[in-house]
């Protein structure tokens, strides 16, 4: 007889791991997390990586605004130089000519001063304004995209998980926002709030606060992301792991945020990237029309709108900020596209998330 006692098959095994082959092998492709696999796919996508590099470069460019302003251009974004002269290669030239024409781009002719010329009758340094304006544009794009993403995720989770009247209320509210042309809703809110400011409880905003366009843009784009998230949650909540969690006694909050949310991450990340691009474009449109960023703040969209007035004499004043918007949005769109391919090659989220629903739902009533 063996000295060691045989384990009683009726008793629960002390170390169940020993006998079960369920633990994955430590090496080999099957053992990598989906995140690592996505990272590997993304690393192979050169165009997406180049876009990311371009976006980072733009961020560094606008972050360097104070450096350039203080050490190279020696002026601020709102400092006027109407009656001053600048020496270009030893020759004195007026920043704004007698006829009111601003000086053109000097590149490094004056040691970096008026690199892109002056911005019009006031003679402000266009390069410095471009860098500071970009800070506003990017800041609004990033913050509003973050708010859109958080709002849409929470609303999508609630509507998709609870269904019934919660879904009814949320979805119908989204339908109403959806019924407005995006730019017009932005304009309506933008002009109404720019005049009087906003006061919700303890939070108070002046009419020219940049948080007003941030909030408007965030809200206007929320339905476009909340609806796809809701759809995904509706499908996910029928899966076995949700049933298992409920059987273990998990409450609604835990199911939504600990079970469902981790499955939504790849969608959320892709949408966030594309939201920044779309939100920046909307900010540019609103600011161009005068319903977005209010003076004394400036942004790329606002700079184009003043630049267009002198398009024939100084085209650079409209083209420079316009091209900056294009490059930023393009880099985000291409990177977002690559991110989607890497995270979920079968995904149906499209770059054109802003255009709304891909299939109609006869559910307005």
């Amino acid at each position, binding site marked *: 007889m063996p000295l060691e006692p045989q384990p009683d098959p009726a008793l629960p095994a002390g170390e169940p791991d020993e006998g079960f082959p369920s633990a994955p092998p430590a090496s080999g492709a099957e053992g990598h997390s989906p995140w690592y696999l996505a990272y590997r796919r993304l690393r192979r996508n050169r165009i997406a990586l180049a876009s990311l590099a371009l976006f980072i470069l733009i961020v560094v460019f606008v972050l360097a605004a104070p450096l350039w302003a203080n050490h190279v251009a020696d002026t601020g974004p709102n400092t006027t130089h109407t009656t001053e002269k600048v020496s270009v290669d030893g020759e004195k030239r007026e920043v704004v000519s007698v006829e009111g024409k601003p000086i053109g781009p000097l590149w490094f002719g004056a040691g970096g001063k008026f690199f892109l010329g002056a911005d019009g009758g006031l003679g402000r340094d266009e390069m410095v304004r471009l860098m500071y304006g970009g800070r506003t544009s990017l800041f609004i794009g990033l913050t509003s995209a973050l708010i859109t993403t958080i709002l849409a995720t929470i609303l999508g989770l609630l509507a998709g998980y609870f269904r019934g009247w919660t879904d009814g209320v949320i979805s119908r509210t989204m339908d109403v926002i959806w019924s407005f042309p995006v730019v017009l809703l932005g304009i309506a809110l933008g002009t109404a709030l720019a005049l009087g400011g906003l006061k919700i409880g303890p939070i108070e905003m002046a009419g020219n606060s940049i948080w007003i366009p941030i909030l408007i843009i965030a809200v206007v784009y929320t339905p476009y992301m909340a609806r796809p998230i809701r759809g995904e949650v509706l499908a996910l909540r029928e899966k076995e792991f949700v049933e298992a969690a409920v059987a273990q006694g998990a409450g609604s909050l835990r199911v939504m945020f600990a079970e469902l949310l981790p499955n939504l991450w790849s969608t959320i990340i892709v949408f966030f990237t594309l939201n920044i691009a779309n939100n920046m474009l909307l900010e540019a449109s609103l600011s161009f029309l005068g319903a977005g960023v209010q003076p004394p703040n400036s942004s790329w969209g606002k700079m184009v709108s003043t630049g267009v007035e002198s398009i024939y004499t100084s*085209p650079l004043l409209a083209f420079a900020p316009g091209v900056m918007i294009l490059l930023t949005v393009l880099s985000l769109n291409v990177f977002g596209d690559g991110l989607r391919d890497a995270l979920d090659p079968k995904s149906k989220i499209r770059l054109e998330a802003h255009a709304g629903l891909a299939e109609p739902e006869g559910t307005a009533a």
Partner: protein
Amino acid sequence: MARFVARRLAGMVLVLFVVSLLVFAIFNVIPNSDPAQRMAGKNAEPILVKSIEEDWGFDEPLPVQYWSMMEKVFSGELISYGDELNVDERILEGIPATFSLCIGAAVIWLFFGILFGYLSATRAGGWLDRALTVGSVAGISIPVFLIAAVLLYLFTYKIELFPASGYVPLLDDPLQWAYHLILPWFTLAVLNIGFYSRVLRSNMLDVMREDYVRTARAKGLDERRVLIRHVLRNSLIPVITLFGLDFGATIGGGAIITEAIFSLGGVGQYAADSITNLDLPPLMAITLFGAFFVVFFNAVTDVVYAYLDPRIRLGSSAQ
């Protein structure tokens, strides 16, 4: 089908009612400022503010205020405070220009969107596909006003080929009408050309994997016939849906920037001018006008889609 249309129309009326409530709220109820003051604009005389207050009855209860606002809009008595002109008349005057711009742009974006999408999908992976893919991403990333600025600079200044602004009514002179609208049409169409060619490309690539396409090839149809009759036709159904929604959104407010830059004098330019003057009554009316077109084309699209795809109308009338 008739029941479906009726249901959809009833839904449309309901949505429009809620939309009008929201518009009322945005312009009249948003807290922290006197609505009369806001309507009168930035540096208004106290007398004007007082008269607006009486005119609009801002001391009345909210439902009464809502009713009087809607009454003003629909009876054509709404007066702007900037130039004291009738708002409804001004919108009606602008409609021909806005429609000319939007319909022309829609024809252009549909034509090039479908052409590029078809070429891209049928040559997937080739150099033409790659070039078109890059072009379409650029098309959806470029701000409208940058396209307008570049076109203006190149074609009205560097090469004086087209007029920079103005609208000539179609019935006055059809040639001048088109000549004045060419640049605005392309400006407005670029975004959707990029968008539609991407959507069509990916739809076509999906459809090409369907069994019935293999069947069509197996029974010996030539490739062109397979691609056009079987693949393209079925890939266009989602595009039609998108078109309905986008067309409504374009008429309803998507053309504002284009109209403003090319001074076409349409509804969109009226909106842009009203923002500059911070004149709220026109913006209120134009927002209602825009929402009407979005909701209307939404409903039309659903009906057309239900006609094309019976599963939808059967599914919803079974409820």
